[in-house]
């Protein structure tokens, strides 16, 4: 089976009972027990015999990533929506057609990313994440309040996309469930694409780094 879409991923996870959800100590969040069972290849390969305790520890880590990622995606969707509303209200001055298209496209992508994470979480019985990341939200809100034109909006969008891409990259090695890891990488790729085009719009070289960096990665509070 080729796994190319979030639906495929979710289906694969549900089918093999490897993507279970439940209360495992993370209060207030949908808990993703992603590495349960045969998914926990790292543990198996290392000859670890810790059993359920290790599985739960891995699952807690994956759950935290899923929840945090969903919070980031809510923030991205809200920010793009805010930019769209401001542009529609004429608060950003003249909006070039390509920038308008970019905003609606990127917002749609982030909504799909959010839906993917929440789809996985709710299928396991967890609660969908609907609030933006509590740490980043006030920071972005403050910056958004200072945006006066399209250039400023594009700069803020670039910052968000780079934070998102770096966060996913930073999280990859720690995600035990390989399908979840691939989903995160798939989203990282799209966010990096968004950043490249924003660089171009801002008259900057679109691929500034030889290796994608993690220094802008956000971390859960």
């Amino acid at each position, binding site marked *: 089976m080729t796994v190319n879409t979030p639906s495929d991923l979710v289906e694969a996870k549900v089918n093999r009972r490897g993507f279970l959800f439940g209360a495992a100590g993370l209060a207030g969040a949908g808990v993703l027990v992603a590495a349960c069972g045969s998914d926990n290849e790292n543990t198996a390969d290392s000859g670890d015999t810790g059993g359920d305790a290790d599985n739960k520890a891995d699952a807690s880590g994956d759950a935290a990533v899923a929840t945090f990622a969903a919070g980031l995606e809510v923030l991205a969707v809200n920010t793009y929506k805010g930019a769209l509303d401001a542009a529609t209200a004429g608060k950003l001055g003249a909006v070039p057609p390509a920038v308008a298209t970019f905003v609606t496209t990127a917002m749609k992508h982030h909504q799909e990313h959010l839906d993917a994470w929440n789809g996985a979480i709710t299928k396991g019985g967890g609660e969908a994440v609907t609030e933006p990341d509590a740490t980043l939200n006030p920071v972005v809100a403050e910056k958004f309040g200072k945006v006066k034109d399209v250039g400023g909006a594009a700069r803020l969008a670039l910052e968000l996309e780079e934070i998102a891409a770096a966060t996913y990259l930073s999280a990859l090695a720690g995600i035990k469930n390989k399908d979840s890891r691939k989903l995160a990488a798939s989203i990282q790729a799209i966010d990096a694409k968004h950043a490249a085009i924003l660089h171009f719009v801002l*008259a900057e070289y679109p691929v500034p780094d030889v290796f994608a960096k993690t220094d802008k990665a956000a971390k859960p509070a």
Partner: protein
Amino acid sequence: MTIDDRAMAEVLEASQDIHSEGIKVAQAVLPQLEEIREDRRGKGINLAEIHRYNQGRRNLLRTLGLGGGNVAGKAALGGLGGLVTALIATPAHADEALDIQILQTASSLEVLAVATYEAALGLPFIKGGNKVVKAFAETTMKQHDEHRAAFQAQTEKLGGTKQTAPNAKFVPVVEGAKPGLKDALAVASLAETLETVATQTYLENIGQLDDTETVTLMGSVMGVETQHAATLRAVKALLMGGAPELIALDASVAAKLPAAAGAVAFPLAFEPTENAADPSTGALK
């Protein structure tokens, strides 16, 4: 038809040897299989693990000369039992082998990318054409060379042999395209193909790798190749739209870009993997 009794006796003896060896293998492996069964009972199917197993199995068969129905290779069956036992007894080694194959294939894609950009830079309409396109080709070639070096170093770090040859599957793609490289659009199309293959290969690999350090390296390179691909898609669109003057790093350009330029670089919300190269395509035999 006559029967050569002596030859028949040899065949029968060989058959008995194979049977005996098979019984020994089964007896040796059975307790381990029982352990695995108990461990995995009720835990469902792991697609990635099946892929890894099949990959390792194909490679083993190829190594033994048994792939593609190679009858002559069946003479090696006597030694197969020992190899299978060893393979099953050391699953970590088998997993590590796939990680090395992945890195070798990644290296082979980077070698091919460097060679392709180098060839493109020799074409008069790139060398003397749009400055941004030329700068992009030069910078991207250097970035791919650094990716190659990183993948090769990681291959050796994991105990493998570094791959220095271009990817065997995609060399014909590049060679086949070369006669048609008559303008910048054709070059951008070929480059985009290679960047997309690299991006999707590394994405697929991220879901297959065991070594976490390699996962981060692969994600880091993928994050750059995907930006190459996005840029090339935008460049292609502007060339096809007859607006090469908009391929410029100039603050005035944004206002002139057509609406489609805001979406053409990323047609999907999730990067697919349908164009990913199989880890065997660049692996050293």
